[in-house]
């Protein structure tokens, strides 16, 4: 059970991650703001206790694995990794500035804590399934966390992997869909038709947990707890109903909020929003 106090810690941790995201993208002057901010709360939950990890041993065999299949949200993962001490905070100054270790899309060969190279959408679903299968074949007890974008689920490969995970009973595979409702050219609904991810994953044979507020750290935490405890021979999909650009009002309200050029004034505006959202001991959750 998540204590009230730790919930506040996670909320602030999510704001720290948001600050890191905007620090990186602000310096780079361009980046995937919307989809990075929408998973900041998920990152806070995973790196704040749900994901077994050791920053001193990024490839520790006992760790849980994580595949950010929506690799363009790399800045969210980098901020979380730096805050956990996988690498110095100064690295966050280098996003996309060669020879950086932080390319815009996550790359297992360059960044400590990144388990799989992603970027071409849909592929992380399969590599995560492979990692989960490897654990099963080797009798290991790690969980594999897969983070999918909602637009990414337009890739057929996601559904190939969804079938495979059920056929191979990958019960330690936990997928998240960051259902923020928007993609580059419009809303998910406009472009992909009706996008009921709960129904779709359930129809493929997955356990499904729906989180109505996918930016609420308590709700995410409890969903992950439930997913880990399920272990009924089926993978678990947690559908997070999130807000693209979450936490920065300007980004939340923008019609187009996937990736754009950021100026210093915008960065300052975002940082003010994040600061205002910080909570203190005694605050209501």
């Amino acid at each position: 059970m998540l204590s009230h106090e730790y919930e506040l810690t996670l909320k602030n941790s999510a704001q720290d991650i948001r600050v890191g995201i905007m620090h990186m993208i602000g310096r780079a002057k361009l980046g995937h703001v919307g989809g990075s901010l929408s998973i900041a709360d998920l990152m806070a939950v995973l790196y704040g206790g749900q994901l077994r990890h050791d920053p001193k041993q990024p490839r520790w065999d006992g760790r849980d694995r994580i595949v950010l299949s929506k690799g363009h949200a790399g800045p969210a993962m980098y901020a979380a990794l730096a805050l956990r001490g996988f690498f110095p905070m100064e690295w966050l100054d280098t996003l996309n500035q060669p020879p950086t270790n932080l390319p815009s899309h996550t790359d297992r060969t360059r960044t400590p804590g990144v388990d799989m190279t992603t970027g071409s959408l849909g592929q992380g679903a399969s590599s995560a399934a492979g990692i989960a299968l490897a654990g099963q074949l080797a009798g290991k007890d790690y969980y594999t966390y897969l983070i999918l974008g909602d637009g990414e689920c337009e890739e057929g490969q996601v559904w190939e992997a969804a079938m495979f995970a059920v056929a191979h009973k990958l019960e330690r595979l936990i997928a998240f869909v960051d259902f923020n409702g928007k993609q580059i050219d419009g809303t998910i609904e406009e472009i992909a038709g009706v996008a009921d991810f709960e129904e779709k994953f359930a129809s493929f044979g997955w356990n499904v947990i729906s989180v109505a507020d996918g930016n609420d750290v308590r709700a995410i935490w409890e969903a992950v707890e439930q997913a880990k405890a399920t272990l009924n021979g089926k993978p678990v999909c947690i559908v997070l109903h999130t807000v693209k650009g979450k936490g920065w009002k300007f980004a939340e309200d923008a019609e187009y909020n996937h990736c754009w050029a950021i100026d210093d004034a915008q960065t300052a505006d975002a940082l003010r929003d994040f600061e205002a959202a910080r909570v203190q001991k005694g605050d209501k959750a």
Partner: protein
Amino acid sequence: MSQLLKTPLQSPDPGLRAVYAAKLEEFIRTTDNVVGLDADLMRSIDTYPLWKQRPDRMVECGIAEQNMVGVAAGLSSEGFVPFVHSFAAFSSRRAFDQLMMSCAFAQLNVKLIGSDPGVATQVNGGSHTANEDIALMRSLPNVTVLDICDAVQLRQFMEQAAAAYGVFYLRFPRCAVPRIYADDAVLTIGKAETLLDGGDLTIIASGLEVHEAVLAADLLAQEGISARVVDMHTIQPLDEDCVIRAARETGAIVTAENHSLHGGLGSAVAECLAEHCPTPMERVANRSFGDVGSLSYLIKHFDLDAASIAAAAKRVLPRKKC
């Protein structure tokens, strides 16, 4: 050298599918990390009994090659060594982006098998014919590309590929093919084999075309033309020293491959010659999409037979610089 060549070229071997399945079974029995993946073609490559025997090491991925290659990447990242099979058309064309990003760019350790490339597709016809696989694969840095000609070579190259870290692409027919190498031949990935020596020109062949090249050398010998025959089994990395030596010593080159004219062995050799030793050359390769037919019919139909190679040799000889 020529002692490697088994005479006559009658094959004592089973189909290469059985050779593949037996070697994979050996890997699974003798190592703790080799796994076999397939996309609903285990019955086609003779690994079905192995799957039933070792479901802990054989992974049926269903008709979903893109997912299969991605799953292989994930398995590899955890220390497994996946041998991943489908027909060449599907393991290359269908899953190319997955091979590029999840495997090669990610610097993982995946062995991709493309069976029945080019005319070996036979009655499956044009839809299933991979004439592009070598071109695709050799466009990827650090991917080793192997066009395999017989059972001896398949066994040895599977062993070498399993032992070396990195992405390897192995293409070979599923059927029985003429034996090129003696049982005790020692073959090395990246090092071309000179099968027959000759001074008038060099035929550089790979895969199914190695046998046709040997037959073409016989045809040419009957007309007093002395052809060197090289088995360039490794298209990437190309044995450039061998190509340059052949150009300098014989002054004319013919390439022969069961693949598109564009982007395969002939292109690789031409690039090497253009950079290092411009030399008259002719390319024997496929110039159109595939079709249905028996192997012997298709080899003739697409002008990949020994007579076509000999004709190419006679076209190139007058262009030699004296």
